[in-house]
């Protein structure tokens, strides 16, 4: 009998503080697995954001920063530019990355920082108790849009993957989801590809992962997965948005 | 009486913040000064949620109380943490449906109430917090029972169907508390 699935060595044994069914946990595990698979734990530096994953440094078992709200890509830039041999990734929520951190993520992507960004989009501010995020769905109710997001007043949700893919600077940009096993498996491939590009020193890499927030959506984990599937995926299409021209990059290098 | 402080503690979702609010409202409606100070922060996520209610006939000094006169606990960690802090001569109400241990205090009154079981009897296990509040008021008489019941009615005005069970739970608790006090105050 072989163990064909178990606790990834690169996660600490701590139980997370995430709510039951919150897919932050799934995404943590995938990141840990990818780092194990690539054997880069010893030279990886992760960056936790401000958001529910603020304590990510308690769970990832390697060197970690805790960054200020939204600025993880700038922290990553400082770290990676100073020690290019490190594998640097940030792990950020949608309030963190798409609201307050918009300038930092767009510019890190545009400068082509050779980092990996794991973007957990749960369409809400989880940690602070469920306020509207730029990614909140039309008509979705939150504590700061109690009548539902009115797109005439505050516009449509931001699609970060598409927005960043619009930049001319090469990059790897994909969107997956952690709400089903199938999408989780696919998303893990995106994450792995992203880290591989970074290991090869190729380009900026970005994986958006749709994630549930049962607590602030006011749904059970199961309902939350269904809501994500029904409401979010049509608006946030999954798939690879941009891939570096590996050939060209190798010649350039 | 001139004033008292009650600490109500449990897991998040067990309704102790609401019990505290009902108590504060009731006291305020009886013309007293009150403060309601919830814990927030690290304890909150999946941990304990507690609230301190101060009641006084004078402006409340510190709403933050290290040694309360009364403690209502819905879970074991809270009893372990706050039990020792109750003032000598104070009251501890323990929800014995959920707390398997006893309070280690002989200088306080300790009442064990099977709040969840009693609440179920009253119609809904979710009203265990009101059993606890009832027990506290039955024992202490800090506010009038009628005032408290009015507050419950107000609180649930928009979900009227919950009123009867919640009132019943409160009454059951009250009776228990009053009994523990020896039937008189």
């Amino acid at each position, binding site marked *: 009998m072989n163990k064909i699935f178990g606790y990834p060595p690169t996660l600490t044994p701590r139980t997370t503080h995430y709510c039951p069914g919150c897919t932050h946990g799934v995404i943590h595990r995938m990141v840990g697995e990818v780092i194990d698979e690539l054997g880069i734990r010893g030279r990886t530096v992760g960056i936790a954001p401000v958001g529910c994953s603020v304590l990510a440094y308690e769970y990832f078992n390697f060197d970690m920063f805790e960054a200020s709200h939204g600025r993880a890509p700038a922290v990553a830039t400082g770290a990676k530019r100073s020690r290019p041999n490190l594998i640097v990734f940030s792990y950020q929520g949608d309030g963190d990355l798409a*609201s*307050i951190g918009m300038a930092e993520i767009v510019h890190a992507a545009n400068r082509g920082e050779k980092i990996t960004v794991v973007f957990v989009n749960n369409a809400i501010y989880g940690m602070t108790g469920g*306020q509207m995020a730029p990614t909140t769905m039309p008509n979705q109710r939150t504590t700061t849009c109690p009548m539902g997001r009115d797109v005439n007043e505050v516009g449509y949700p931001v699609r970060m993957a598409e927005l960043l893919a619009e930049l001319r600077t090469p990059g790897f940009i994909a969107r997956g989801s952690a709400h089903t096993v199938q999408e989780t498996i696919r998303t893990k491939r995106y994450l792995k590809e992203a880290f591989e590009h970074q290991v090869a020193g190729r380009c900026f890499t970005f994986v958006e992962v749709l994630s549930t927030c049962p607590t602030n959506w006011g749904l059970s984990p199961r309902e939350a997965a269904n809501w994500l599937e029904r409401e979010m995926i049509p608006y946030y299409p999954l798939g690879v948005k941009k891939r570096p021209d590996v050939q060209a990059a190798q010649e350039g290098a | 009486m001139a004033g008292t402080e009650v600490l109500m503690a449990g897991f998040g979702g067990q309704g102790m913040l609401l019990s505290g609010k009902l108590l504060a409202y009731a006291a*305020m*409606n009886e013309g007293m000064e009150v403060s309601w100070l919830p814990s927030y*922060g690290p304890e*909150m996520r999946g941990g304990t949620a507690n609230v301190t209610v101060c009641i006084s006939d004078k*402006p409340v000094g*510190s709403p933050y109380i290290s040694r309360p006169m009364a403690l209502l606990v819905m879970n074991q960690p809270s009893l372990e943490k706050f039990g020792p802090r109750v003032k000598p001569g104070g009251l501890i109400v323990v929800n014995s449906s959920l707390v398997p241990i006893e309070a280690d205090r002989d200088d306080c009154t300790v009442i064990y109430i099977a709040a969840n079981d009693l609440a179920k009897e009253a119609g809904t296990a979710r009203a265990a917090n009101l059993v606890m509040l009832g027990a506290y008021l039955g024992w202490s008489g800090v506010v009038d029972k009628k005032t408290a019941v009015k507050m419950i009615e107000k609180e649930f005005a928009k979900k009227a169907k919950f009123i009867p069970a919640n009132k019943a739970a409160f009454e059951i608790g009250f009776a228990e508390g009053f009994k523990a006090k020896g039937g008189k105050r």
Partner: protein
Amino acid sequence: MAKVLMKGNEAIGEAAIRAGCIHFFGYPITPQSEVPEYLARRLPEVGGQYVQAESEVAASNMIYGAAGVGMRVLTTSSSPGISLMAEGISYIAASELPVVLVNIMRAGPGLGGILPAQGDYFQATRGTGHGDFQLLVLAPASVQEAVNLVILAFELAEKYLNPVMVIGDGMIGQMMEPVEFPVEGVGPPLDPGDWALTGCEGRERRIVNSLFLDPEACNRHNLKLKAKYERMAENEQRWELYNCDEPYDLLVTAFGMMSRICKTAIDDLKAEGTNVGLFRPISLNPFPYEPCRRVIDRAQRILDVEMSMGQMIYDIQLAAQGRLEIDFHGTAGGVVPSPDEVADKIRESLARIGRSPARKPGKRSAKAAAAQKSKSKRSKKTATAQKPGKRGGKKPQNAGKRSAARQSSARRHGRRSGR
């Protein structure tokens, strides 16, 4: 008007509406998120708007825009968020726009924690941003006072065309107390005066600006601001004295919620026969140096208590001018000193001037606890807040009315909370 039981954060939001402010721009942050949440519900009801800014940087510039077109405007945040507003606040002050900011302080520095703290005293009173400017800073010690001071903040902001900050700690934001709103309904709109950008139809055009490339002009502008700050210092000092009518050897200094904890400690000690005075600045800027000096002159030692590593103590030193020794007790990180702890520190300070009460410092005694039960002495000698030149009894403008009143409204304020 009837009293209602309200969370500090929500009461602050409501107070702004009562003051006629129907525009809010801000960003969620614990422990103040109930302000935006409350206003997101309430403002549309009164014809106003809640706009969630993308960040505190943006929020500080949105309020600049809103105030610049002559509307009353509020933003609220907590420590790290206020830091992000530093540049924006400097622009607002330099452009002389009336805005009200609320800082519900949490533990710092950095991300720190989300529990109550007072470590932004310096930031509020000295270095909120670059250049020579000052905020008016008001620090309430109860939900009622928060309401009163928010309303006052709008008045002062407009009187001086200066940003006003109301600063409290997480406790004041999170706790519920009964409040009475001194005014009904939504206050009248702001008079756009001769400065607001309302469109230049039929009048000379106006400019809201802080750029003065000519150094002489920039210097003149700074002198003008300075003169205003001197006027503020003249007219807007607010403070409270507690227990200062009887003789005391020790003066305790504290502000905001910390002062209430000190009061409880002081009351407890009275039961031991010790009288201790308390000085609480209500306006942290302008700091009431003279009033503070007057009560210092009657003491033999000072104990400054803060939920910080020691910030207001510099102002106490400036008031004391070296005349007395100052002890300090401070905690940070969200640890709130308890009344017992403060009482112990008071005993230690008294011991240093040979006025130690007989009993050794220790845990709050049973006797003290008993005293607590019947705090009859606390009644009429409480808080007297004064303005300069108006010593003595006059009830301060901003003192909360504490008369018992029936609760008239059952608005629901319980909300999920987080960080």
